């Protein structure tokens, strides 16, 4: 699973950051529901508390991932190649760590989605016609449905992405708010054109947030 994820990454030079020019590899696509189910099952990760969840919201009836009667993660046949929505921040971080990767930082996200944001600014109708946002479909779609933009699938659509860093502030750990970047299948155009990054309580996994992982350093 590690090599499958890593081989499907796009190498991008990240410049202009505090620590200067460096190279990272960004996953071409967000992690899919089937991939995360396989990953967590292989690692022995589970949702054992009968009342709530640690990593994956299994209580939303429309959840991409289920915790089934065999006490394993699974997903429906229709959702296998959709983004693994429903992971909270801890679940997203755990998936990244299991892959030897990490979640992107906001500055990195801004750089790797620059081709998409530029397209949105210059040709919004063209952009919308080839992106799953604003309920044009009404649900998530398989992660490779739309064409690559800047080497990535769904850089600005289908599902938002958890970022690594918390919002600055005096919050206690329990109330930690994490950055979520991008847009999902349900993000209205009126939001997409004004707000691409906002805070979200890291404890909740929702139907609109997925996970893209990133590796430091170039391809081996």
């Amino acid at each position: 699973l590690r090599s499958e994820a890593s081989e499907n990454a796009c190498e991008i030079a990240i410049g202009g950051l505090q620590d200067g020019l460096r190279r990272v590899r960004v996953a071409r696509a967000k992690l899919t529901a089937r991939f995360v189910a396989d990953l967590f099952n292989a690692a022995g990760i589970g949702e054992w508390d009968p009342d709530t969840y640690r990593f994956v919201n299994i209580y939303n009836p429309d959840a991409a991932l289920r915790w089934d009667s065999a006490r394993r993660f699974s997903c429906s046949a229709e959702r296998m190649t959709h983004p693994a929505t429903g992971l909270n921040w801890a679940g997203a971080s755990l998936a990244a760590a299991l892959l030897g990767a990490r979640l992107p930082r906001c500055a990195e996200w801004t750089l790797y989605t620059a081709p998409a944001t530029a397209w949105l600014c210059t040709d919004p109708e063209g952009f919308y016609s080839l992106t799953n946002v604003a309920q044009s479909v009404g649900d998530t779609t398989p992660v490779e449905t739309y064409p690559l933009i800047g080497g990535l699938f769904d850089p600005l659509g289908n599902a938002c992405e958890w970022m690594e860093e918390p919002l600055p502030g005096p919050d206690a750990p329990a109330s930690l708010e994490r950055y979520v970047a991008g847009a999902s299948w349900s993000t209205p155009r009126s939001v997409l054109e004004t707000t691409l990054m906002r805070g979200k309580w890291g404890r909740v996994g929702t139907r609109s947030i997925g996970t893209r992982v990133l590796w430091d350093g170039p391809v081996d």
Partner: protein
Amino acid sequence: MSRPFLLLGHHRSGTNFVNDLLQIHPDCECLNEPLSMHSTFWMQRDLIAWGEQDYDPDHMHRDLEGHPGAATYLADLHSYLHAAPTGRIRGAKETLLFEKLGWLHRFAPAFQVIILVRDPRAVASSIIGRNMQHLWAYDDRITPRIARTAAFAERSREDVLAQVVWSWKERLALALSQSALFDCHILRLEDLVAQPRSTLAGLMGFLGRDVDCAQMAFMQESRLELGATTYSWSRTEQAVLDGWKTRLSEGDVRFIERNVVGEMAQFGYVPRLAV
């Protein structure tokens, strides 16, 4: 520090739409059903009343004593909602808790409450049309309670319309009976759709904020016919206001009006003369 808010509405009353509308404001964060869609604990206790006297300073509620996962989550949620950075406001939307507002007042007295109301004919039409009564286990939770309500005797207790009308009537009564404990704002979905500017200004004013231009842009966008699904924020004005008229039979409409005519008149869905 900003006071958190609770947006409370019956199933299929436009709570997702209002949740998104609040969330779009740059100062607002509105969590979507952080209890009922993130745990089994609360769904299993739907319509089990918790009053002010049930608040337990040690365990929040005695029922939480044997559920450490649910208790920790609830404590974390409380911390999160009350720790908004300066200038921001946090809240949550729920379709449960109508019968727990007394307990909530002791647990989180700073809460401001928004009660979202929609015409029960539209609520019934939406639930029945999508067969959603199973999602909220109406057979298990509503049917046994209907048995104790003589007014519903003309329909079988398993009748979905009777379940929905009972649910709408009882949940609204439970919420209104406790609303004086809080700063409370009553919001009609129909007003928001038909007079968006003034109604939204009233809602945001209640939360101490001005309407943001992105919210008005979203109101416009929400009227377009997009790829609308069950939980979609996009509906035409006609679908929201009048869709039930073609989906409910005359007998269904008469049944609803007969059983909740007082409440409908209170919220302007039928003339007061009809009471």
